[in-house]
């Protein structure tokens, strides 16, 4: 089936989205036991009777997990429940030790909030939050012997329960309506803003590539001008900001294609494929799926006192929106320039580069110029470029010291990106250094003047702007290693035009 274009899809249909984001908290221990949450350990080395679901074991709530959930709720402008319970979500899956997930159902810890997100054009879109609740992660299955790593075609599966019981906060939006053609952008901006918020709170690193933050994109279309929601698809575990946007965009086109052909959307979960930007059918999710929720009898209700909640509210850190406004003022940027920094995802790299000793304008110049371009070309996140803020700061320092000029600095950056080592190593290995030896430079200037008598004559006659051609020739002769400003001064001096 050929997909209808995005524009055609939006001409007929109005997208409605729901975003469910799972955040793995960075607590030291699991949600209901004392096992470590450290990533990367030997499989099944961070387990105990409770997180393995052994007969007789019981859960005990991690107080830091509850505190983190409340802080997230407060930062999302939610109401915090005075009294809430955990509930059991019952379903069978081999990597779920108890075959129920201890979660929350109709009594979430936080509910009724919102998050304002900034779009690329600088406008603000309010995403309303339905709820944020606490739950535990499952174990991890790896399917072995098949070609795809999926269960289909595998000969056997391995189970690792290190992840089982790691605290999760699930944040669910209310239906996002009225975003229109900007729906995919809103989805991306929401997840980005949420990620920043979570990091600012210090409750999780929220690394999507490590599965610490996972997004489900629920999407449906309804004919323009109608109210009733269409049937939704649930695209699971979309694991980068870019993918969130692409998945929403693809689903809009796919739904429009199906609906346009007079067919029905099947309510199902779908998998997003990074390689080609499409989704494929997962499991059919008819309404018969019944989790038989009931209040968890092994845990007592959570009843955070109002005093505690207010204490937590008062101790919230500076939130991303406020921080952005502050940085914009500190850096002296226009709205447009700040937006460019945000769109490039350059705030953190710039801050870290400044922290490593670079001036703000220099730091911004590199991350928004050379490096942003490269990120764009390779379709990767800016922060994931193979160069550290400290390395960028070192290049800035070499320029400030007069050891590199702009052009050479660019070469050094490229070499660092190519894996040639630290900036100083690149400079040494490539023999890059500004030619500042006056006699050597003087010789090069004399030679160029000699080779271009016409131009030299013009300059002597007062046409100072013609000096550019001679500077260029000297730079070429010195393979770019001269200080252009100095070359210019030298030429003018020698031709008596200074």
């Amino acid at each position, binding site marked *: 089936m050929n997909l209808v274009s995005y524009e055609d899809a939006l001409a007929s249909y109005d997208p409605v989205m729901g975003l469910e984001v799972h955040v793995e908290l960075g607590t030291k221990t699991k949600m209901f036991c004392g096992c470590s949450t450290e990533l990367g350990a030997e499989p099944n080395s961070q387990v105990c009777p409770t997180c393995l679901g052994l007969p007789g074991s019981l859960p005990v709530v991690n107080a830091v997990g509850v505190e983190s959930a409340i802080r997230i709720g407060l930062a999302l402008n939610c109401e915090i429940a005075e009294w809430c319970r955990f509930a059991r979500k019952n379903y069978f899956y081999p990597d779920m030790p108890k075959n129920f997930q201890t979660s929350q159902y109709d009594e979430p810890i936080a509910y009724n909030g919102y998050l304002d997100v900034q779009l690329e054009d600088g406008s603000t879109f309010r995403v309303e939050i339905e709820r944020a609740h606490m739950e535990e992660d499952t174990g991890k299955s790896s399917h072995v012997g098949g070609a795809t790593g999926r269960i289909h075609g595998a000969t056997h599966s391995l189970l690792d329960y290190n992840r089982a019981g790691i605290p999760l906060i699930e944040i669910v939006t209310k239906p996002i309506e009225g975003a229109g053609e900007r729906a995919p952008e809103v989805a991306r901006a929401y997840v980005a803003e949420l990620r920043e918020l979570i990091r600012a709170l210090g409750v999780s690193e929220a690394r999507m590539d490590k599965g610490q933050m996972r997004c489900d994109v629920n999407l449906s279309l309804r004919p323009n001008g109608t109210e009733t929601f269409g049937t939704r698809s649930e695209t699971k575990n979309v694991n980068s900001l870019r993918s969130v946007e692409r998945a929403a965009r693809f689903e809009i086109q796919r739904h429009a294609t199906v609906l346009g052909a007079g067919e029905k959307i099947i309510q199902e979960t779908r998998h997003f494929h990074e390689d080609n930007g499409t989704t494929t059918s997962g499991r059919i999710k008819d309404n018969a799926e019944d989790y*038989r929720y009931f209040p968890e009898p092994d845990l007592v209700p959570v009843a955070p006192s109002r005093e505690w909640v207010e204490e937590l509210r008062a101790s919230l850190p500076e939130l991303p929106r406020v921080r952005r406004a502050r940085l914009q003022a500190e850096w002296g940027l226009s709205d447009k320039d700040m937006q460019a920094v945000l769109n490039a995802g350059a705030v953190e790299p710039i801050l870290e580069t400044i922290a490593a000793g670079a001036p703000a304008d220099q730091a911004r110049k590199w991350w928004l110029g050379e490096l942003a371009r490269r990120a764009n070309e390779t379709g990767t996140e800016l922060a994931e470029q193979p160069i550290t803020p400290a390395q960028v700061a070192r290049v800035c320092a070499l320029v400030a010291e007069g050891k590199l000029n702009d052009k050479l600095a660019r070469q050094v950056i490229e070499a660092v990106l190519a894996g040639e080592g630290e900036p100083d190593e690149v400079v040494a290995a490539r023999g890059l250094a500004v030619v500042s030896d006056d006699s050597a430079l003087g010789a090069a200037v004399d030679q160029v003047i000699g080779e271009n008598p016409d131009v030299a004559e013009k300059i002597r006659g007062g046409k100072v702007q013609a000096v550019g051609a001679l500077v260029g020739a000297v730079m070429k002769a010195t393979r770019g290693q001269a200080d252009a400003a100095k070359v210019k001064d030298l030429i003018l001096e020698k031709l008596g035009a200074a």
Partner: protein
Amino acid sequence: MTDLIKLTAADTAAAIKAGQVSAVEVTQAHLDRIDAVDKKVNAFLHVDTEGALAAARAVDAKRAAGSELGPLAGVPLALKDVFTTKGVPTTCGSKILEGWIPPYDATLTTRLKDADVVILGKTNMDEFAMGSSTENSAFGTTGNPWDLSRIPGGSGGGSAAALAAFEAPLAIGTDTGGSIRQPGAVTGTVGVKPTYGSVSRYGLVAFSSSLDQGGPCARTVLDAALLHEAIAGHDPLDSTSINAPVPAVVEAAKMRDVRGMRIGVVKEFAGEGYQAGVMQRFDEAVELLRELGAEVVEVSCPSFTLALPAYYLIAPSEASSNLARFDAMRYGLRVGDDGSRSAEEVTALTREAGFGAEVKRRIILGTYALSSGYYDAYYGSAQKVRTLISRDFDAAFAGVDVLVSPTTPTTAFPIGERADDPMAMYLADLCTIPSNLAGNAAMSLPCGLAPEDNLPVGLQIIAPAMADDRLYRVGGAVEAALNDKWGHPLLEEAPAL
């Protein structure tokens, strides 16, 4: 020390402490008794001979070194096979856990070991504590030492039978709907369901989490009190554990004075279905309490008639979820894993083969009751009934200190009689279930033999939550008065095995 197995736990501990007998001798005497009679009784699923003797030797060494011994040091105990024991099999009477060796001790197991109690082994039970006769065990039924052709009660029939057969002076049970008290009643022994939350459930394999409560079983009220104090108390590993001092139950057991106490007779626990001899012995016990100086009044708890149906919605609902973990992935039985089947198929085959009929019945019942569209009508309504029952108790306890009733409507029935009639079986817990739903404390102790069948009758005493000491005060006084009247403890009338 001719008959070590007939001693009470208190006397046994005293004798060991005084050096009149060693803990090893006591333990060996009980192991010999088990050897001699347990083929007939089948109280034990697993006898830990080595572990028991090692524990006994440690007690003797401790005494030899001059260390202070606790009030139950060296006393043998029979542990219901529903508590985990590190390195010792734990089956819950189910095929699905056959061969499982837990890697950890239940908190209760740890406390017994810390008290230097000698754990002889694990006792038979209805599978996952679901039943009132021990007939639902996957490993054969247990005989009632008063008449081996009759049931020893359930689910803790093994623990009660071990006491009545003098295989152990102490035992541990769990009471979800009466599984300590009803076996106590039909075997002529003492059983206590402590206040919900006073004995840790960590390591107690769950049947119904909001109802399950471990508790002491013994042949005397004082022995039960000593064991109660050893196992009760706050446990940070159990979130529902009560963080408050344990009531002084040993002191209460020694008072033997009920003068001035107000005792309520629950009107609803009488009438159709109650055996005449049971009611006769119960009425005599009430009269005895009056003679001992208690004030007896009749109280009405109208919601109690709804307790049984509410229980059979709540308990199976929780069980359907608690038992979901038995999926063949990590421990226990695994059926059909021949490389050709998916994990889901292996799970299904294992559960089909590993669970018995009653467990399956309750899983299906509970799954249905929790289903969307039925939740409010079933689970939701049952929780409301639970609230009503608690209110009835609150109203009753506003006027009386304790309530009394027969523990169970009939004496021990013949093995097989109710096996195919779940409803008749469920009626055995009619009088015990309200206390589980309300979470308060209750005891059963022997009050005589029913004239028509010469089988033990149990008197149930119910106290408000965290007033467990009142059970022991009333129970201790009744026990002393009855032993005086009979000239000996009731169990001496049991036939020799």
